[in-house]
């Protein structure tokens, strides 16, 4: 990855193109915010009606639409991009499972997943997005 990665070594003009396609800062916020949304859901303090089947999809959020569209054309050969796609899919899968545990009245299971697997995969996705957001500080 690293040295050979286009994803984290984009040129200024490519960076401008990417910024036209997606606001990475907002994508980071959206994924960081999931933690709070899920914790509220677990705590019974959420007004949201969360559907695990929708959350599970990795091509519905703004980041997912970008990754499955323009970003694939640009970065299809990039190992880091493929890792990001896979981690992002896993993120949505785990987030959906947190909701599903709650829907099955398994609060302990939901909380354990949020503290464990969710934290790990969320960290992976966010770190990659942060690098993508600041390509020159890799």
């Amino acid at each position: 990855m690293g040295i050979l990665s286009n994803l984290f070594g984009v040129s200024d003009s490519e960076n401008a193109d990417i910024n036209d396609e997606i606001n990475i800062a907002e994508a980071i916020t959206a994924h960081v915010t999931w933690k709070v949304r899920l914790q509220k859901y677990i705590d019974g303090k959420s007004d949201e009606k969360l559907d695990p089947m929708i959350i599970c999809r990795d091509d519905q959020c703004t980041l997912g639409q970008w990754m499955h569209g323009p970003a694939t054309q640009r970065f299809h050969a990039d190992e880091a991009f493929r890792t990001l796609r896979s981690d992002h899919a896993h993120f949505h899968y785990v987030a959906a499972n947190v909701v599903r545990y709650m829907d099955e009245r398994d609060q302990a299971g939901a909380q354990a997943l949020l503290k464990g697997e969710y934290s790990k995969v969320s960290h992976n996705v966010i770190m990659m997005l942060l690098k993508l957001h600041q390509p020159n500080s890799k």
Partner: protein
Amino acid sequence: MGFLSKLFGQPGNNRAKVRTAISSDINITDAISAHVNWKARLENYLNGNSAEELDPMVICRDDQCLLGKWIHGPALTYLNDDDGFYRLRKNHANFHFVAGNVVKKMQENDKAAAYALLNSEYERVSSEIVNDLRDLEQQLADA
């Protein structure tokens, strides 16, 4: 636009190379069978004749089956600029989403909704992905 359409402007040996690469990376005929077979698996599940433990969240993922691994892996190398490929990818994700939902409805004890989904939306998304795969299979055969 069909698969490999961008490649038709290229010299024949490149097209042949891509066809060979696809054929060695994935058996499209097997992928068709696997997706056609889901109908029977889901029907058995709904009828209570299934010994399978189906997890809607796992089914929902479009990158776990053999076709999905190809779509998100090697296929990108040669089909990343192909409109047909993007359509197939979308249709495949929709297929898994709807199949997952059939199982989810069943697990929520809503058998009627599960059947309704299987007989409507599922039929549509299934024929879309299977048609895409048959199209691809055909083009691989037309050497």
